[in-house]
C-alpha cells in the first residue's frame, strides 16, 4: 500500500470511525465495532506519514556538516530553522544576483533509504494486525521506505523540500512531504526580517519546530504493527498529501513567527497521478481551510526557548464523495506548543511539548446515520485532545536518546469511534535510542553520508479506549507494545 | 689543593655577586613583563588603538625622569594620562632605577614604519636643522646617531606615529611641565611649534629607520 493509500486508509478509516458508516448497513453493533476495530487496526498500521529529514543535498549546498542544522536528524537547531525559513537557498549558487560563490553547481538531489527494519509486537496474538501486510510478519526483517528528495535551492530565492517515496510493503511510489518556498531576507528599519511564501501539501510541514505534527517525535515509526486509531485532525496529519496549501509568513528579529496558510483538497486528477490513487470515500475539505501559526522564540548563547500556537479550521466532508450535498463537519483545531533546546559543544538537550484541542460537529455522520438505530447515531459534536511531551539527550551529536509520552482523550462516542467502548483514548510511551555516526561529517569517500540506526520501544497504557481487552482480544493494552528496529541512511 | 681552594673562593665570590642580583631581578622581571603588553615583546614599541613608544635602548636618565614625571603627573599628554598614570599608581618607585637600566641595555630593530619618500627631507632637518626658520639641528642634542645621552632621549628607531604624536603633544601645549632639565622645562615646545606638519612627519619618518 502506498504512502498515500496509507493516508487514504486512515481518512477512510476516519470516515469509518466517525460515521460508523462502514457497509451502509446498520450492523449488529458488536460486529460493527469488531469489524471496525479490525479494519482500523489493519489500516492505521499504515498511517505513518514518513517525515524526512537531514538532507545531504542541504549539506552539499551549504558546505556545512549535518550537525550545524541538526542535533540528531531530523531535529533542527536554530541554524536549521533559519535555513528553512530563508527558503532552503542558503549556500546555493544558482542565481545571478551576485550571491553565487563558485561556479560549482550542486544538484539539489538526495536519497533516503531504510534498507532494513524489524517490528516486533509483544503479544504475537496481535499478529493479525500485521497480517494485513502479507509480506511482513512479526519479528521479521523487511525493507522500509525509500525516498528521493529534491531539496535545496531551485533558483535564486526559491527553494524546496520535496520528497517522493517508494513503500516496498505496499509496493507503491508516490509523493510525500512537499514544501516549496520563496523567501527574502533583509533588514528593515534595523529589524531583521525574513518573509516568504510556502506551497506545501501537509499542514504543519512548513513549520520549523519539532513540536508540530509533521515533524515531532517519533521521526520514524513502524509502518506495520498496531497504532491508536484516533487523534485530532492536525495531530494525525489527516490531510497529509491530500491537500495543497499556499501561505505567507514573516520571521521578525530572529524571534517572532507569524504565518497564515490556506489549504484545499486537491483535485481528483492530481491525487490519482501523484498520490498513487484516488479514493472517492476519503475525507475532503469543503472549500478552503485556514491554518495559522504564531511563535515566539528567544535565543541566547546555547539556549533557545519557543512558545507558540497553531491551529486550523476546516469544514470536513468526512465521507468524501458520499457526503450528502451541503453537509460538512466544521472542525476547529487549536494547538499550543513549546520547545526548549540547549546545544553545547558535546551535549545537546531538547524538550518538546504540544497540545491540540479539537472540537468537531458531526453533521456528516449524523446525516448518514440510520435514525432507526441509535447505535449508529454519533454525538452532535465531539471534543478530542492530543497531548505529547518528549525529551531528547544527544551525546556528541552521535548518540540520541528520546523519551516521549503521548495522550489522546476525548468525549465518548460509540458510533463515531471504532473502539470497544466508544472512547477514543489512548496513552503510551515511546523510547528511542539511536546511533548517528556521521553527524559531524561522513566518510571520506562520501562526506555527506548520514545514518541513523535505532531501536524504538512503544509501551501502551491505554489503547483505543481500553486498558484491557484491547481490540476485543482479551489482552492488555500492553500487548500492543512494539519494538521497532530501523536503519535509516541518507545520501 | 691550593688550586681547589682558589676555585672554591672564586665560585663563592661569583655567587655572592650574582645571587642578590638574581633575587632582585625577579621582581623587576614581573614589572617588565607588564610593560610588554603595550610596549611590545622586545620593548620596540607597539600600535594598538593607541601608540606605546619604543623603550629599548632609551637612555636610563630619561626613562627615570619620565617615570618620575608620570608619577607626579607633571607629564600630562593625553596618552600618558590615560595609560601611564594608572599604571604607575601601583608602581614601586624603588624599582624604577633598575627598570630603567634594564631597558636602556636592550636593543631592537628600528620600527622602519615611516613613509619612505619623506626620509631624505627628514635627514636634512635632523642633521642640519632649518636655518631659515631658526630651527636647530636635532642632532646637536640628540646626537648624530640619535641615541641621546643622559636626560636627552634616544629618538633613533622610534615608531613613526609616536614621534609625530610626541612632537604634536608639545605643539598642543601638553608636556609643558616636562622636567627635561630643572632649569629649562620647555626645551622641546618652542622647537616643535616651529616645525610645520610636513617637517614633523619628515623627521619622524627618518628617525624610524635609524638604528
Amino acid at each position: 500500500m502506498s504512502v498515500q493509500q496509507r493516508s487514504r486508509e486512515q481518512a477512510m478509516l476516519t470516515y469509518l470511525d466517525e460515521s460508523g458508516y462502514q457497509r451502509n448497513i446498520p450492523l449488529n453493533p458488536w460486529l460493527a465495532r469488531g469489524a471496525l476495530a479490525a479494519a482500523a487496526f489493519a489500516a492505521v498500521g499504515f498511517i505513518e506519514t514518513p517525515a524526512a529529514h537531514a538532507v545531504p543535498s542541504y549539506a552539499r549546498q551549504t558546505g556545512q556538516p549535518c550537525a550545524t542544522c541538526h542535533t540528531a536528524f531530523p531535529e533542527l537547531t536554530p541554524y536549521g530553522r533559519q535555513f528553512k525559513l530563508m527558503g532552503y537557498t542558503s549556500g546555493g549558487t544558482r542565481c545571478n544576483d551576485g550571491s553565487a560563490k563558485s561556479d560549482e553547481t550542486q544538484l539539489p538531489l538526495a536519497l533516503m533509504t531504510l534498507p532494513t527494519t524489524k517490528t516486533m509486537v509483544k503479544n504475537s496474538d496481535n499478529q493479525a494486525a500485521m497480517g494485513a501486510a502479507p509480506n511482513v510478519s512479526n519479528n521479521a526483517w523487511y525493507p522500509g521506505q525509500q525516498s528521493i528528495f529534491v531539496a535545496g535551492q531551485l533558483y535564486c530565492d526559491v527553494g524546496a523540500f520535496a520528497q517522493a517515496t517508494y513503500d516496498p510493503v505496499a509496493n507503491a511510489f508516490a509523493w510525500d512531504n512537499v514544501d516549496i518556498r520563496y523567501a527574502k531576507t533583509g533588514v528593515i528599519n534595523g529589524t531583521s526580517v525574513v518573509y516568504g511564501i510556502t506551497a506545501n501539501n501537509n499542514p504543519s510541514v512548513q513549520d520549523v519546530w519539532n513540536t508540530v505534527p509533521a515533524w515531532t517525535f517519533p521521526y520514524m515509526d513502524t509502518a506495520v504493527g498496531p497504532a491508536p486509531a484516533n487523534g485530532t485532525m492536525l495531530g494525525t496529519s489527516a490531510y497529509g498529501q491530500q491537500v495543497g496549501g499556499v501561505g505567507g509568513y514573516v520571521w521578525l528579529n530572529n524571534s517572532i513567527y507569524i504565518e497564515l496558510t490556506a489549504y484545499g483538497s486537491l483535485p481528483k486528477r492530481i491525487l490519482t497521478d501523484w498520490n498513487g490513487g484516488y479514493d472517492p470515500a476519503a475525507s475532503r475539505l469543503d472549500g478552503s481551510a485556514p491554518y495559522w501559526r504564531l511563535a515566539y522564540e528567544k535565543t541566547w548563547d546555547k539556549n533557545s526557548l519557543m512558545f507558540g500556537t497553531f491551529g486550523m479550521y476546516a469544514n470536513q466532508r468526512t465521507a468524501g464523495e458520499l457526503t450528502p450535498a451541503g453537509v460538512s463537519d466544521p472542525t476547529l483545531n487549536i494547538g499550543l506548543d513549546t520547545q526548549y533546546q540547549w546545544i553545547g559543544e558535546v551535549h545537546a538537550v531538547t524538550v518538546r511539548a504540544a497540545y491540540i484541542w479539537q472540537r468537531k460537529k458531526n453533521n456528516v455522520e449524523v446525516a448518514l446515520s440510520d435514525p432507526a438505530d441509535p447505535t449508529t447515531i454519533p454525538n452532535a459534536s465531539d471534543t478530542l485532545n492530543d497531548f505529547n511531551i518528549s525529551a531528547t539527550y544527544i551525546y556528541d551529536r552521535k548518540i540520541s536518546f528520546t523519551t516521549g509520552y503521548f495522550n489522546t482523550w476525548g468525549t465518548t462516542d460509540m458510533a463515531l469511534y471504532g473502539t470497544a467502548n466508544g472512547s477514543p483514548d489512548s496513552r503510551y510511551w515511546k523510547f528511542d535510542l539511536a546511533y548517528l555516526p556521521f553527524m559531524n561529517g561522513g566518510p571520506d569517500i562520501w562526506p555527506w553520508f548520514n545514518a541513523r540506526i535505532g531501536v524504538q520501544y512503544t509501551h501502551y497504557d491505554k489503547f483505543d479506549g481500553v486498558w484491557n481487552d484491547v481490540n476485543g482480544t482479551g489482552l492488555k493494552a500492553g500487548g500492543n507494545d512494539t519494538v521497532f528496529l530501523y536503519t535509516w541512511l541518507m545520501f | 689543593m691550593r688550586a681547589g681552594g682558589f676555585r672554591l673562593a672564586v665560585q663563592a665570590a661569583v655567587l655572592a655577586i650574582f645571587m642578590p642580583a638574581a633575587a632582585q631581578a625577579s621582581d623587576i622581571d614581573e614589572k617588565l613583563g607588564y610593560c610588554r603588553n603595550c610596549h611590545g615583546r622586545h620593548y620596540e614599541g607597539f600600535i594598538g588603538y593607541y601608540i606605546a613608544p619604543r623603550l629599548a635602548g632609551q637612555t636610563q636618565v630619561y626613562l627615570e625622569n619620565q617615570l618620575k614625571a608620570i608619577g607626579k603627573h607633571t607629564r600630562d599628554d593625553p596618552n600618558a594620562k590615560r595609560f601611564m598614570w594608572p599604571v604607575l599608581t601601583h608602581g614601586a618607585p624603588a624599582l624604577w632605577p633598575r627598570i630603567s637600566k634594564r631597558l636602556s641595555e636592550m636593543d631592537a630593530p628600528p620600527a622602519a614604519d615611516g613613509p619612505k619618500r619623506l626620509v631624505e627631507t627628514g635627514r636634512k632637518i635632523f642633521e642640519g636643522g632649518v636655518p631659515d626658520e631658526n630651527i636647530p639641528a636635532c642632532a646637536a642634542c640628540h646626537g648624530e646617531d640619535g641615541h641621546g645621552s643622559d636626560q636627552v632621549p634616544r629618538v633613533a628607531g622610534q615608531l613613526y606615529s609616536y614621534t609625530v604624536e610626541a612632537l604634536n603633544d608639545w605643539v598642543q601645549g601638553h608636556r609643558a611641565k616636562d622636567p627635561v632639565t630643572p632649569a629649562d622645562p620647555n626645551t622641546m615646545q618652542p622647537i616643535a611649534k616651529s616645525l610645520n606638519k610636513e617637517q614633523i612627519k619628515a623627521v619622524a619618518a627618518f628617525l624610524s629607520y635609524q638604528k
Partner: protein
Amino acid sequence: MKFFRLTIAVLAIAPFFAAAVSAESHRNCRKHPGGEWQMDPAEYVVRNCAFCHGPGMEGKAVAPRLAGQHQDYVVYQLERFRDKSRNNPFSLKFMSHVAAKVLPDSYCELGAYLSGMPTEAAKDGNKEHAAEGEDIFLHGKPSNNLPACQFCHGPEAQGTGKFPRLGGQSYYYLKRRLEQWAEGYAVVSPHMPGIVGLMTPGEIEAVASYLSFLEAAPSRGEY
C-alpha cells in the same frame, strides 16, 4: 669574485623573501583593495552567511555579530579558520567548513562590506557587573599587571585594523572566547592568552558584560 659575492648576497637575502612570501598568508587588503571579486557582497552575505549570523549579521545563538567588524580582523580570522589554526570546538564545527568554501579573493571585499554594516549592542550581559567591567576595560588592573583593554581595542571598544571591535558583541560570545584562551586553545592572537591568564572568572564576566552594552562607536579609518 663578483658572482661569488652576488651569490652570497642572494643566498643571504633569499630567506627573507621566503619569509615575506609566506607572511603574505595574511592577505594585505591595502595591496588588494578590491575589484578582483565579481560578487555583490550584500547579496553574498545574505545568501551564505545570514542563516547562521542573522539577516543583518547581528549574530545568532553562538555565532557572533559580524556587522561593523573591521576588515583586517575579518580577513585574518577567515584565514585562521581556513588553516584550522583557530581550533576551538565551535570554530572547527562550523567555520572551518565555511572558510573552505569561501574564495580567498573575496576576503577583502567581504571584510570591507561587513565593516560598514550598521550594528546594535547585544545588551545580553549582567548589568550589575558592567561597572566593574568598565573599570577593567578602561584602566586594566595595574595591581595585577593587567593592561587596559582600551589600549588595543579603543576607548569605546570600537577596535581598529586587526584588533576586533568588541563593543556591542554578545556577552556569551566574548566570555566564551576569553575562556577558550584560558583553556589553552590556539594562540591565534599572541597577546590575549597572557592577558586572560591574569583575569579571574568574575573579571572576565564583568568585562564581557560591560562590552555587550556598548553601542557602536565610529572607528578610525575607512574599514
